[in-house]
């Protein structure tokens, strides 16, 4: 997707905006826990963190570089930026696994975390699996 931002700028009118929404995994923070997706089990109002989804961050850093190059090339200027938590909910482990394979195929779940997730769901079959992903929204304006 290296040229996708360049193509977006081509089809935008001058002053048009690019809205870039994607997982926020800042390696520079040196905080690996923060950079991972957190997996929770929810039973009624009780919420327990049971696992993490970890992945390599190369893809997201590549996107950072593409944006930085477009800014340096005076193609766009950066505007508002904010970070928020984006949530996915799954009613079963099967659905969680199926979607994980589709959406987060590069992420892995540590063996111990997986066991804890399975044990928790075994004790609470009606539990809902929640995945929290830190996400950034950045608005870029075409020059």
């Amino acid at each position, binding site marked *: 997707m290296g040229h*996708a931002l360049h193509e977006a700028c081509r089809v935008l009118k*001058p002053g048009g905006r690019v809205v870039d929404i994607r997982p926020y995994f800042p390696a520079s923070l040196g905080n690996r826990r923060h950079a991972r997706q957190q997996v929770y089990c929810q039973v009624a109002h009780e919420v327990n963190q049971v696992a993490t989804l970890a992945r390599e961050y190369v893809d997201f850093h590549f996107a950072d570089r593409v944006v930085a190059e477009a800014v340096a090339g005076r193609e766009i200027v950066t505007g508002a930026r904010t970070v928020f938590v984006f949530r996915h909910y799954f009613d079963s482990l099967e659905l969680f696994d199926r979607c994980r394979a589709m959406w987060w195929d590069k992420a892995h779940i540590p063996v111990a975390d997986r066991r804890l997730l399975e044990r928790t769901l075994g004790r609470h079959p009606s539990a809902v699996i929640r995945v929290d992903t830190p996400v950034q929204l950045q608005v870029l304006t075409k020059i």
Partner: protein
Amino acid sequence: MKGVRVDPERRETRIIRRHVPFDGARVLDIGCGDGRLSNRIRGWIDSIVGVDLTGEDVGRAHARKRLEGIARFAVADASCLPFHDRSFDLALFSWSL
């Protein structure tokens, strides 16, 4: 997909609304998937075009009745968009840049 809920609290939609002036915009949703985000912003925009590499997802986006009349979707490569220069007001990349 039944049994799966994506951002049901609509945090993403609220934050987009807070930071992005959509009113009357002609929007391009790049990597639109099944049209989830297009559907959520449909009330604020003039029209939207969604593109994705995956025909199956584009088919699901097409099937969203609420988008009839304001949206169209196509299979296209984001690195070679089949549109004229300067034809959109806003481009969305939701988890797709």
